[in-house]
């Protein structure tokens, strides 16, 4: 997501007077998001705290987070992209067909009111969750929301940020971006990075059975992938690094127990706003860290012949 219009959670805390959560349930999935970073905090430019902010929640069903919202908009499942598109049109002052809006489960007046509030605010932020980015439209939805935030900057300051789940998944994006240039699904089979979601994404590779070995760390695809994908993991040699013996470990050829990230192994993790934070492990684990084990595997691979011809051994006939 290069070029996205975003900010840190510190800026949200100190400046955001309009906060929109789309397709997420922070009350249950990110319990301290409201209290530590967004609506409940008093900020430098928001001395009134909660009273100085407007919170809107867009989701397909009523969750625990509704209680914290000033406005709740219930969208029909799979209609998020249509709603975002209508909002983008309204932001630009274009006419929108009432009937088309009604198909999304919302009314034109509700959307117009939302757009008016967005334009009136001093600093707006949209947090979007997996209810948006993992349902019909997927990354097109994320792109549309990011575009909406970018376009809002013609009127006021506006940003958008994905609500990242599992611990350091934001760090995985960052590390892959700074090492390969792409955030995920990077194919290094030809010795240089290629990126094509849908072709090189794990679920597709596993379901098609394209791979002939798997190295899994910090995940348990044996519990979460569709069955044909799990079958592939069981068929090919799979190697697992995990603090526990997981579902994937049970169908793997090799499992190595590692120490728990953040509790026993030190290092860095990225927060969802892409701020890196140091970990402060407190317990001494009897197991090695993931980092150490990967490094040892690299050392063992290094002793074997390289699969990619080194430049000096390549024929020089090719111009």
């Amino acid at each position, binding site marked *: 997501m290069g070029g996205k219009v975003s900010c840190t959670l510190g800026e949200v805390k100190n400046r955001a007077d309009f906060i929109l959560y789309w397709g997420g349930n922070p009350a249950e999935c990110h319990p301290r998001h409201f209290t530590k970073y967004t609506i409940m905090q008093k900020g430098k430019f928001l001395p009134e705290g909660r009273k100085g902010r407007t919170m809107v929640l867009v989701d397909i069903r009523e969750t625990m987070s509704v209680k914290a919202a000033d406005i709740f908009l219930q969208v029909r499942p799979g209609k998020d992209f249509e709603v975002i598109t209508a909002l983008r049109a309204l932001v630009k002052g274009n006419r929108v067909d009432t009937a088309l809006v009604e198909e999304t489960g919302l009314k034109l007046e509700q959307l117009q009111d939302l757009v008016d509030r967005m334009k009136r605010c001093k600093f707006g932020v949209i947090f979007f969750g997996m209810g948006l980015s993992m349902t019909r439209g997927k990354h097109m939805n994320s792109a549309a929301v990011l575009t909406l935030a970018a376009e809002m900057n013609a009127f006021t300051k506006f940003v958008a940020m994905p609500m990242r*789940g599992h611990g350091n998944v934001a760090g995985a994006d960052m590390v892959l971006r700074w090492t390969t240039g792409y955030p995920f699904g990077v194919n290094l089979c030809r010795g240089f990075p290629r990126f094509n979601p849908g072709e090189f994404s794990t679920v597709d590779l596993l379901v098609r059975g394209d791979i002939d070995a798997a190295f899994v760390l910090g995940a348990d695809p044996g519990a979460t992938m569709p069955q044909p994908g799990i079958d592939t993991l069981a068929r090919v040699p799979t190697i697992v690094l995990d603090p526990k013996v997981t579902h994937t470990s049970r169908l793997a050829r090799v499992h190595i*127990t590692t120490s728990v990230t953040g509790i026993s192994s030190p290092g860095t993790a990225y927060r969802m706003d892409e701020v890196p934070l140091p970990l402060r492990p407190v317990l001494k684990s009897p197991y090695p860290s993931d980092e150490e084990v990967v490094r040892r595997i690299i050392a063992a691979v290094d002793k074997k012949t390289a699969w990619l011809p080194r430049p000096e051994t390549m024929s020089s006939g090719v111009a």
Partner: protein
Amino acid sequence: MTVTITQHATCTFCGCVCDDIELHDDGVKIIKTKAACSLGTSWFLNHTAERLYPDALIDGKEASVDDAVEVAAEYLHRANMPLVYGLSNVTCEAQREAVSLAEKIGAVIDSHTSL
């Protein structure tokens, strides 16, 4: 039992990555947390420094880490299109090593982001 208190510990259970947690531990277990939410608290209390699992398993049988590393390297080196997957619950330092391994063995590397 001596209890150690650590300030400003970091929770990595969700994307909030709260770094203001106070942890009380007895060397083996974390016995108390302050500032963490219910998800974070159960995550901290559920992980201990005990040896609950074998060091390594090869084909389901207990093995040493040294042997497991050799076997893993052999499988990965032999593969034409290996996949390196996950990266979510590990540090950036481990992720960087994983990228290096992926490059060495000519793999596809991917995280939960692609789901």
